């Protein structure tokens, strides 16, 4: 579930508000999106893929985490490299190579 919108990183581009298939975000008064309907989140990671500044974090669980969970701790997630991890793997963002270009999985066993 979406857990973090980090105001310090957000450039108020509205991308996440637009692309979230289940309309979880509303644009806040200051332009920073707010998680208005967390219970509608389908844990699909699309908002993260589209956020140009890695300001969002989607925890890998389908239920909300506790307030003191490390999935809400931006500093820790930055440190561990988990923040922005999906975008990095997709190769989305300036100067990156598209992940699809090298997405060759293993041969399947019979």
């Amino acid at each position, binding site marked *: 579930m979406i857990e973090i919108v980090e105001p310090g990183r957000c450039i108020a581009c509205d991308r996440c508000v637009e692309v979230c*298939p*289940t309309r979880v975000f509303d644009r806040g008064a200051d332009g920073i999106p707010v998680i208005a309907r967390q219970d509608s989140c389908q*844990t699909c990671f699309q908002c993260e893929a589209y956020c140009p500044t890695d300001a969002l974090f989607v925890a890998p669980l389908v239920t909300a985490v506790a307030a003191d969970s490390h999935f809400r701790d931006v500093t820790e997630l930055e440190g561990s490299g988990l923040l922005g991890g999906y975008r990095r*793997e*997709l190769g989305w963002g300036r100067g990156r190579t598209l992940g699809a270009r090298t997405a*060759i999985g*293993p041969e399947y066993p019979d």
Partner: protein
Amino acid sequence: MTSNDPEPTLNTDVLVIGGGPAGTWAAIKAAQAGADVVLADKGYTGTSGATASVGTGIWYVDDVPELREAAMASREALGGHLADRDWMARVLDETHARMDELARIQRYPFPVDSDGRQLRGDLQGPEYMRRQRTRVQRLGVRVLDHTPALELLTDTDGVVSGARALDRTTGETVRVQAGAVVLAAGGCAFRSKTLGCDVNTGDGALLAVEAGARLSGMEFSNAYAIAPKGTSLTKTAYYSWATFYRADGSVLDGAGSTRGRSVIAKTLLTEPVYARFDRAAPHEQRAMRKGQPNTFLVFDRLGINPFTDLFEVTLLAEGTVRGTGGVRIADHDCSTDVPGLYAAGDTATRELICGGFTGGGSHNAAWAVSSGSWAGRGAAGFAARRGRPGRALRAAGTAGLRPTGPVTIGHREAVDAVQREILPYDRNYLRHADRLEPALRSLHRTWSAVREGLGADGEELFRAREAAAMVAHGRWMYHAALRRTESRGMHKRTDHPALDPAQHHRLLTGGLDEIWSRPETPRRQLLANGGRAA
């Protein structure tokens, strides 16, 4: 619905409902055929639906007769010989051509092998679907995001003539009047949380049946996918390398990803099940990370190394998403039994190429591409012949939109009631009349309550429709499942474990307040072995 202001109205040749792979290919082909096209998605075309979040293997087979023959033969028995060679061959051709187009025009970055040849058997969801969106927009299609269709419009002759939809950004309804409609709204996964599928609530089937369409293969609706417990990660391919365990660390005998998933289901009824991808060699492990970044996104975030750590798993229902039932296809252009209405992707039955076996893994993706392309061209042709519809249009919606009594039930309550009957493994997966019958009765009661007393206003309108669509879907599934008193394809009856040669036919299902199922008429019945329609 309470306001007297005239609804804002768009007029177009072709309305496409749903912007997944099926809907975007439909929009592309309709626009190329010269039609004016409106594409409305409940979410956002490019990120919404199963493919966008999941990515898919696709049934792409080189144009070599022996390879094609082997590809067609491979799933015929698994599908209970309900597929059709003619359709399989058409889908293989069309998929080949469209993947070529995807590479050339959408410039999809397929990986290349050591000989420089593109490998086209896998599509990464976000990459594929963002390119589909761009292509659709470049062709001048009007894209309406966050605009779920609520109901179809028909003219006085019953010809489908557009839809009413809800603009979720404003909470207002809009009308789109069209010469023909393509339904590509996905299947129904009952909001089980399988990846990317909360938007797939079976709206397409409900809209179609309300306009007079019939369904086919609704008994093939018991797909369940493995996921690490508590997550939405239902990517199942890599479980081919997994061993399954009990809590005490002993191996769960007979459990497996493809054959043996029912053992997992049975065990989960009473105790937890664990998995580990411990049969993957180091070079395979590295390839897996490359092949499916979203899989490892979840494991990395959970702090689990799936190759060395045991992790608890669950099974999530995927209904008619990785099942194969849906709107009956009447002809090669993906027209339905109702004039002006075309169906594509998971909204349509995939029995034509899968029979009764899951279309997941390859066939569904190929079907979405092919059926979408055919439906788009078909709808454009129909609209050109017909012209724009006249004024006297009737709105076909029923449950959730037009309660017959005072509002007494909310959409959440209705969804809870459906999930109670559909999600449990002992009802939908491990099927037996003793459990299916009471479950169906309960769903009928929920339908009556919904029909009479489910209504909503403003933004909530589409939630009410989703709830109604799921109740209807569950009833069609269980009605057909009870009617097929044998085991065939994915439909396994524990009370009828054998295949019954006398039931070698497709089952049609339909109806709203009164539901019916019956074998497809003899003309379309299948020959003993082959599967080619007579």
